[in-house]
């Protein structure tokens, strides 16, 4: 019974982590421009992240190492520094985009420009990390994230042609805007397969003191939580395809178009639901990314870390998330377009994947860490697939950024 509760909490938490400004914006853009045609990218990204999250949890539960600890210990500092720098940079952009997402929600709600909201949002996030515990952040904030289920409700109420939805789940070639199509596909994959997700998950497993008895729960949380998150993303995509398409909006280049999505179904409350979903999903993600930034640095250099400690007991750790949050708010406060930043950072995330995923192949097959709980054939095939995908994405992201980006 206790395990069951733990699993449900874990599932809810992973939904909170999964759905953020990146998955919402990319799914909405893809739906508006290509209808259901890009559902396969959401599905593919979700399957990949299920495997990676399961492995990150298993690695932490069995070896009592986070992924960052494992990479440094197994490959040495000189190798670790590359994933460290890449992840710090990508996380920073993603964090900025999340703060932008909350700020846009605040602008939609109040009419005051998002620029003025960036610093207050960062301050509120910082306050929660400074005073809160891991449990509060993990569970409290992600519980609120369940409001995003309204997209699934809306998608079902819109009665899409389910046959067409199924057709969209199979990859197909675009009929128009070829460069944009692939750029959208890359961004969706980047939004789903975020390094911060699986790295944060392994830190969380250590914070929650997982051991081998959690292996079953870990599998359930990874599988159910991520599929749940993926389903909501598909919900966003379907709603965008039907509603935005019907309004003649094919190109979402302005976030003011987005709240339109839920209005036909829920009227004024659709607007409220959209704003709440955007604000909560992005705020939750901002907390997780800022924490992950501090975890990464503290674990990489062996400092004392833990969100349950008081800041004075882990001053280095606390300072990292404090600085990251306020610095990440600066570009938004200066007026950088949150939507453009989001799409850009998702594509960059995809390109950075090989650096963080290649180590999985070694760590999860090393008896000294995972003993008899090493990867089976299927998991290894999944890792190799993500690595290959990551390499392709890394090579194509930059040209697509130039020709297909917004």
């Amino acid at each position, binding site marked *: 019974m206790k395990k069951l509760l733990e699993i449900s909490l874990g599932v809810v938490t992973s939904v909170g982590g999964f759905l953020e400004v990146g998955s919402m914006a990319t799914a909405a853009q893809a739906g508006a421009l290509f209808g259901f045609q890009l559902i396969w990218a959401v599905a593919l990204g979700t399957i990949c992240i299920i495997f990676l999250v399961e492995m990150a949890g298993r690695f932490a539960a069995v070896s009592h*190492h986070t992924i960052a*600890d494992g990479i*440094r*210990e197994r490959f040495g*500092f000189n190798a670790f520094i590359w994933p460290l720098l890449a992840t710090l940079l990508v996380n920073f952009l993603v964090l900025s985009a999340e703060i932008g997402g909350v700020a846009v929600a605040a602008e939609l709600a109040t009419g005051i420009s998002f620029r003025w909201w960036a610093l207050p949002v960062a301050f509120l996030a910082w306050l929660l990390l400074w005073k809160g515990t891991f449990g509060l952040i993990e569970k409290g904030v992600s519980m609120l994230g369940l409001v995003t289920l309204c997209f699934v409700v809306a998608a079902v109420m819109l009665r899409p042609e389910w046959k067409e939805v199924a057709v969209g789940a199979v990859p197909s070639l675009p009929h128009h805007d070829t460069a944009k199509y692939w750029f959208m596909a890359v961004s969706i994959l980047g939004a789903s397969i975020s390094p911060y997700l699986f790295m944060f998950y392994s830190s969380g497993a250590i914070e929650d003191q997982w051991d081998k008895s959690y292996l079953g729960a870990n599998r359930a949380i990874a599988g159910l939580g991520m599929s749940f998150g993926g389903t909501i993303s598909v919900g966003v995509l379907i709603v965008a395809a039907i509603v935005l398409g019907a309004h003649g909006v094919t190109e979402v280049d302005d976030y003011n178009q987005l709240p339109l999505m839920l209005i036909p179904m829920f009227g004024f409350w659709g607007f409220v639901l959209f704003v709440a979903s955007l604000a909560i999903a992005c705020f939750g993600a901002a907390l997780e990314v800022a924490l992950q930034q501090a975890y990464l640095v503290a674990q990489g*250099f*062996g400092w*004392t870390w833990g969100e349950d400690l008081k*800041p004075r007991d882990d001053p*280095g750790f606390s300072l990292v998330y404090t600085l990251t949050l306020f610095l990440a708010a600066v570009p938004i406060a200066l007026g950088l377009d949150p939507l453009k930043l989001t799409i850009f950072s998702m594509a960059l995330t995809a390109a950075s994947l090989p650096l963080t995923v290649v180590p999985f192949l070694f760590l999860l097959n090393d008896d000294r860490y995972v003993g008899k709980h090493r990867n089976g054939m299927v998991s290894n095939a999944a890792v190799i697939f993500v690595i290959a995908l990551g390499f392709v994405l890394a090579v194509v992201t930059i040209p697509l950024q130039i020709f297909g980006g917004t």
Partner: protein
Amino acid sequence: MQLLRDILDKQVVDREQVKIGKVDSLIAELSPGKPPRVIAVELGSIALARRLGSAPGRWTAKLAARLSGRRQPRPHRIAWNKVRDIGVDIEFDIDVRRTRIFAWQDWLREHVVGRIPGA
């Protein structure tokens, strides 16, 4: 046990299980006719930067000299005979409060973090 594989880059904790850093480098003693013998581990940014190359090592040492006000800053050293246990972490029989390893964290606590309300 292979030193480079099993010791280098491991998490170091003191006898109270406080995380104090990673094994940033190993110090071995060479004597003629005998295999090299590890005598200490080193922790800290200087040891770490030296692994990236001699130039980053020099820059970091210079920076550390300026920040700490000491003329010749050195990495923190812990004698190998203080090892108590090697498991997930490597435990040394020392008390971090009696070393200078946390000097920078103490400085941060006193001058920055501790001054923010609620810390």
